[in-house]
């Protein structure tokens, strides 16, 4: 069973399941009730993103294109590595994985 929790604990057991941590960047926190860290139970990145967008529908257009693919200006890292250098959406997520969503920003002035 997949699940989501919005507690801010770095790692915890929710409903008896080991959870991965997903870090939401500040520009997208308005879609996650201002929550910076979520705990997700899913075994791949694709399922993690599904779970996220089901629970927080406002995130969908920011993370996925019309074809349901992760947008090319949104990078997802598992640990320190870009999922494009791993197995993309099929990248495995294990308990304790830290998943970072990092969209492009262009400010400088």
């Amino acid at each position, binding site marked *: 069973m997949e699940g989501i929790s919005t507690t801010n604990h770095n790692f915890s057991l929710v409903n008896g399941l080991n959870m991965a941590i997903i870090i939401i960047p500040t*520009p997208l926190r308005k879609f996650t009730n201002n929550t*910076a860290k979520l705990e997700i139970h899913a075994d791949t990145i694709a399922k993690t993103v599904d779970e996220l967008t089901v629970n927080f529908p406002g995130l969908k257009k920011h993370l996925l294109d019309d074809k349901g693919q992760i947008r090319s*200006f949104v990078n997802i890292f598992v640990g320190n590595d870009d999922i494009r250098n791993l197995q993309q959406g099929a990248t495995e997520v294990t308990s304790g994985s830290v998943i970072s969503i*990092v969209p492009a920003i262009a400010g*400088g*002035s």
Partner: protein
Amino acid sequence: MSTDVTFSKEELSRYNRHIIIPEFGLAAQQKLKAAKVLVVGSGGLGSPVLLYLAAAGIGTIGIVDFDVVDDSNLQRQVLFGVNEIGKPKVEAARQRLQALNPHIEFVLYNTQLTSQNALNIIKDYDVVADGTDNFPTRYLVNDACVLLGKTNVYASIFQFEGQVSVFNYRNANGDLGPNYRDLYPTPPPPGLVPSCAEGGVLGVLPGIIGSLQALEVIKVIAGVGEPLAGRFYIFDALGFESRTFNISRRDDNPLNGRNPTITQLIDYEQFCGVKAVEKPVKEITPAALYELQVKGEPFQLIDVREPYEYDIVNIGAELIPLATVTEQAGKINKDQPVIVHCKVGGRSAKAIRELEDKFGFTNLYNLKGGILAYIDEVQPELTKY
């Protein structure tokens, strides 16, 4: 070449704290003096970058900026003070930096970096520091650096977040690192990611991130330490958390992947979709609006900014924030001219397009330049923000 570089007594004294670091020394200081660095944008990031590069003794610093100093810049652009308001930024920057370090040569480009001039400007420099504020210029700087074989020290900020990386860096083994297109192959569509002008930025954030950018420029030139090439640093000021990710080159990079398709600079406004969304809306100038007001002609004035902006300053319009225009469309007249305004004209154009598309309005006019232009031209006594 750097061994030919000599220092005056004053310079040796000034750079003493560099020279006495065993891992840095006179040799690294000579490399700084021999180096030419181009800083693109002298705003939030450019301010600390320029201050630290000038203080550190980079021999030649080029500055590209087409803007003038505005009072809304001073919350973060620490190069400037109230006496510089209205002056070209490149001029004001040189004045400040020359006072800081008279041993440096400055080259000023009081112009916008474009596909037409970028190669010609960048070719004379060793390293580029990109502190621009929009996606088209980010891709322009990146592509020009890759085409010319220059290292691009990149930093970017938004609200509470900062990003830093060193792009297109060739290490001692001759291996070339990734560039911006490896990290973000394409930009977001316009409107999806707000700019700092719309979304804001905490003033101290560019100070932190710009200092890291200056650090990487100095390391790349001096050849000390491990530059942030092939890595991507992000900083979240709210949570005080930072992370460094590994990034790598992509086979499908159109600039220098397996099958390059971009061999010269392109139209970056078009690439970023900026041109495509600009479905024109009818406009009215502040002077023409004033004339309607003076003559007492019938019209409706709508302000689509946020309530807190309305509280700072307003010109008596009905407040209908952009996010609510669809639900409040019933309040907007269809039988007389309706003038819509925001701060500078971007949000009101969006509101007009939305109302025209969804409800078939044909009587909507965008106030050109927004309330700021109206204040400049009609009511200069009002507060600008």
